[in-house]
Every structure is written in structure tokens, then in C-alpha cells.
């Protein structure tokens, strides 16, 4: 079988583009036959990953490059997001503690927690000075 399922979106690191990114993911996932709830969860996880990249890797600089690649087979749906900004160590992001946020008025880490909760796998790879890669995987319930 030909692996011609993959599709890529290249877009600038502007929060204005989050809506286009969500549309790209949801229309692809719809064609792939995923359920409404699965599509919503994947869309949110991708939004969170891209928001983190825009805010942290590119420090809200709107002209950075983002590449979002989608692929799927019968068993899983994968999203690979590349950026060329500062590298990022996901292990330093602690599990969020809402009570502590409430006291300290800090809200970081919520996005990472949502990604890990909504997806089956979240994997970060960094090649410093070259690129950062986020791989999100969702197993498809047959």
C-alpha cells in the first residue's frame, strides 16, 4: 500500500495562525474517519503544542517557521511539528498544580498537561541550533 496519507502545512509562528492550524488538522482528521471527540482532542493537543512553540521556542516572534505534518494508518494518527527556534526540555515542565497556580498566579504547564492527557504519546526531540520536533500520537480505536 502506498503511503500517500501524509500532508504538511508550513506556517509562520503567529498566534493568528492557530485557527488555520486547527482547521488543517480537523479537516484531515475528518477525512481519515476519526470521531468528533477524537478530532476535538487532537485539534486541542496540536493547538497547545504550537502555542508553546510560538511562546517559548520563538518567544512570540511572529516570523518563525512551523511545519505540521499529519499522517495516519489503521492503528494510529501522528502529528509531527517542527520548529527552528530555541530548544526546549519538556522534562523541566512540572505537572501542573492548580492550587499552587492559584496562589502564585502562574498558569504555565497547563498546555503540556493537556497534550499528555489527550494524546497517547508526546515526544520531544531537539537538535540544538537546527530544529525541535514534537511528535504527537493518537491510537485509533478500530
Amino acid at each position: 500500500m502506498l503511503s500517500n496519507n501524509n500532508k504538511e502545512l508550513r506556517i509562520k509562528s503567529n498566534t493568528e495562525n492557530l485557527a488555520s492550524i486547527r482547521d488543517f488538522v480537523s479537516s484531515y482528521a475528518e477525512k481519515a474517519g476519526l470521531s468528533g471527540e477524537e478530532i476535538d482532542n487532537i485539534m486541542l493537543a496540536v493547538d497547545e503544542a504550537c502555542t508553546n512553540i510560538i511562546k517559548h521556542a520563538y518567544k512570540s516572534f511572529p516570523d518563525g517557521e512551523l511545519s505540521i505534518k499529519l499522517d495516519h494508518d489503521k492503528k494510529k494518527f501522528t502529528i509531527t511539528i517542527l520548529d527552528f527556534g530555541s530548544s526546549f526540555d519538556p522534562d523541566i515542565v512540572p505537572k501542573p498544580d492548580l492550587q499552587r497556580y492559584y496562589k502564585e498566579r502562574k498558569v504555565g504547564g497547563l498546555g503540556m498537561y493537556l497534550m499528555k492527557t489527550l494524546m497517547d504519546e508526546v515526544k520531544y526531540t531537539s537538535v540544538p541550533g537546527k530544529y525541535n520536533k514534537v511528535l504527537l500520537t493518537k491510537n485509533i480505536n478500530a
Partner: protein
Amino acid sequence: MAEFKTSIVNKGEVSIISVKGYLDAHTAPALENNFTELINKERFKIVINFEELAYISSAGLGVFMAYIEKIRDNKGDIKLASMSDKVFNIFDLLGFPLLYEIYKSEDEAIGKFSESKS
């Protein structure tokens, strides 16, 4: 472009912010402005009506976290109302029901402010 709109209506002491569309990192500043405006006017009793909200990401949830302490310090509160199941699930995943009162309807949320006054 993400469509997001808010409107504010005052009913007595309570201000209701109705949110509509997509609340994400791009549109969250519009809601922040609403909170700043109400706080500047010393209107600390706030209900958020989520009936027409289609989508929320953690950037949107962060807005409620950013203002809640100041509002409660001033004897006010942010009460949440009329969420779809989809939007509620995201709040629930992050543990918000422990920190915020969430009601089925806007009227119920408004009513809770007068109950707590007596």
C-alpha cells in the same frame, strides 16, 4: 482567523461576560481586556456565560486563573455558567471544578451572588 467575541451586560451588582466562538492564545487578550475593564470599574461579581463558546485552549483557561485572586480579594467571584459538555471536559481535566463554581445556567450563577450576600 479565529472568531471570538465577548459582550458585557450588567444585572444589578453582577456583570455577565458572554463569550462566543474560539478562545485561544490569539483571542485570549480580548477577554483579559474585559476583566481589566470590570476590575477598573470595581465590578467584582462576574458571571461568564459560555453558551456560545465553541472552543477553549489552556491560554483561555489561564485568563480565569490570572484574575481570580484579585477578584476574590475584593469580595467578588468569577462564576462559570452554561458550558457545553465539550468545554466542561477541558475545565474538568485541569481540575477547575475544585476552584470555580460552575452552574447550568446564567440565572442560577447570578442567583448565587445574592444568596452569599445575606
